[in-house]
């Protein structure tokens, strides 16, 4: 096991972490601001992958899928917002979990009706096929693209939250919604925008993951658990928590698979249990 082996595994871990980050950040931002546990986030991720596959089939271009799928998923999210999410905002976490769990079932069957039960794949863009030399190793270009995408989203979000007007409004609303409303922030519009943004990220994660992972009807339910684990370990609602959670899980699963493969299946669950017993609110709990 020379250095290049560890660099490769480091990149693998980064790639997986960034995929988890893209998925969990939307969920956690929605929770942080709206206090809404949106399990259907996983379904939107699945829709991103399937819609991406269809758009790519239709246009013959991966990039069209890459940009259009998040937009379409956002539209679906907006529809959900006006029909269900908005009226469930004050209904308590238990009811929110149940309603969005019902949505998961519905999306599952919609996808089965529309795309069938057979797993589908999406070809990555031609320009990112094959491997590239990076840090002295040959690494798949598309995986590097995922890493860059994750870091890009991370930086953008940090910039928005800490340097812009809307970011200040979001932070104020996270800390104290009533106060923010009293200060003249249009809280309901803000909620809607943030929700849409979260949905767009879910769709983006779906279409970005499709060239690496296949699209299956159960992909939503199977990704739900790791995503929730990331968000809960990090601390629901906190951006830093989502970053920390996805990097911890990504690195632990990757290096767990490399070093103690027979335990890798339970490693995440053990970590989750330990974190929650040690810090019942997650590692970096959100304020407010």
């Amino acid at each position, binding site marked *: 096991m020379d250095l290049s082996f560890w660099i490769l595994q480091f990149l693998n871990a980064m790639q997986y972490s960034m995929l988890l980050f893209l998925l969990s950040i939307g969920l956690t931002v929605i929770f942080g601001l709206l206090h809404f*546990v949106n399990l259907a986030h996983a379904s939107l991720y699945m829709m991103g992958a399937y819609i991406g596959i269809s758009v790519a089939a239709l246009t013959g271009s991966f990039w069209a899928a890459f940009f259009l799928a998040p937009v379409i998923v956002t539209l679906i999210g907006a529809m959900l917002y006006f029909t*269900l999410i908005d*009226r*469930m905002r004050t*209904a308590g*976490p*238990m*009811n929110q*979990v*149940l*309603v969005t*769990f*019902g*949505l*998961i*079932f*519905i999306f*599952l*069957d*919609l996808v*089965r*009706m529309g795309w069938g039960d057979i797993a589908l794949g999406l070809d990555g863009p031609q320009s990112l096929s094959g491997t590239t030399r990076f840090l002295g190793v040959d690494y798949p270009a598309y995986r590097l693209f995922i890493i860059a995408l994750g870091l890009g989203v991370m930086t953008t979000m940090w910039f928005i939250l800490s340097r812009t007007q809307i970011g200040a409004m979001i932070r104020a609303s996270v800390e104290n919604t009533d106060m923010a409303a009293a200060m003249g922030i249009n809280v309901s519009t803000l909620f809607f925008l943030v929700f849409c943004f979260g949905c767009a990220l879910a769709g983006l994660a779906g279409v970005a993951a499709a060239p690496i992972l296949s699209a299956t009807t159960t992909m939503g*339910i199977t990704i739900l*658990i790791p995503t*929730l*684990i990331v968000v*809960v370990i990090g601390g*629901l609602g906190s951006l830093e928590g989502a970053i920390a959670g996805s990097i911890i899980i990504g690195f632990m699963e990757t290096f767990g698979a490399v070093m103690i493969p*027979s335990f890798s*299946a*339970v490693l995440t*669950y*053990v970590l*989750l*249990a330990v974190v*929650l*017993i040690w810090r*019942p*609110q*997650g590692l970096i709990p959100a304020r407010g």
Partner: protein
Amino acid sequence: MFYQTKFRSITLIAALIFLASYASFGSYFAREIVVEIIILAILAISLDLCAGFGGMVSLCHGAIMGVAAYAFAIMSAKLGWPLFPSALIGLLAAVVVSGLVGWVTARTNGIFFIMATLAFGQMAYTFFFKSRWLGGDDGMGGISRFDLSAIGLEMNNSLTFTYLGLGVLLLAYGLTAMVMRSGFGRTLSGIHVNEDRMKALGVNTAAHRAKAMAFSGFIAGLAGLIAAQHTLYISPELLIWTTSGEALIVVILGGLGTLVGPVIGAILLVLMKHEISDYTDYWHAFIGLVLIFTVLAGGRGVFGQIEYWLNSLRSRHHDPDNHQTAGKPQGGDHA
């Protein structure tokens, strides 16, 4: 807080009579369906105890049920113990595991409690899934039926088995109802409503929650024993978190915190599933719609909603200052 009202008793008895006659007069498959309902109803009662009264929405109840089934199967089929002591070991295993989970998660609440129980449940699932000694994901067979011919019961007769299952369901309900109206059960409700104040009243709330989980594990263990006795074969499928999720749906559908609701919910869900799957493979979407509708309609569940209507009718007819006897206030409160 739990009160065994007349309406609840009547509904429960009606439900049991319905199940018994469905099994007696229906086709062979009707009995399979009734046993499926019995297992799910007992599991849901056990979950209602935690979630409805203690506010502990657990996603590891399926795993606890599975632990009982596996412990029973290991003792009887692998180690050759007689069935009765094996069953006791099975229940004991469920109580111990459940109590331990309750003890270490006592400080967590809400979504964090859900996730912590999910973690423990999935650990148990992975353990049995990977255990090659126990057949791994293929499961293990070789379990034998209880021989109750001494008291004149032929357990291999599916109708007898179904009746006995209904008896266990009644037992599970009775035990849970008894505990929920005892000082222990009411204090559990109190902890759910205001844990801090309960501590100030001198109640060790963490230990109390752990004990409630342990008792709930006993009930879930009963479901596990019936499952193992019914199929004479068990697989890790029992332990996966979606089994707990299904039980949770049943509790919500029937009525959280009512104990009778879970029985009604189990009947509705299983019958609905079988009826719809005769026509279409897309019954998940239907269940999803029902779940959403239930929550939008007030989240009281079918039984809870009816009880709520009855209570509001009754209080409209009564003088509001007129106290009911023996401290029997309006039921249906979710505490």
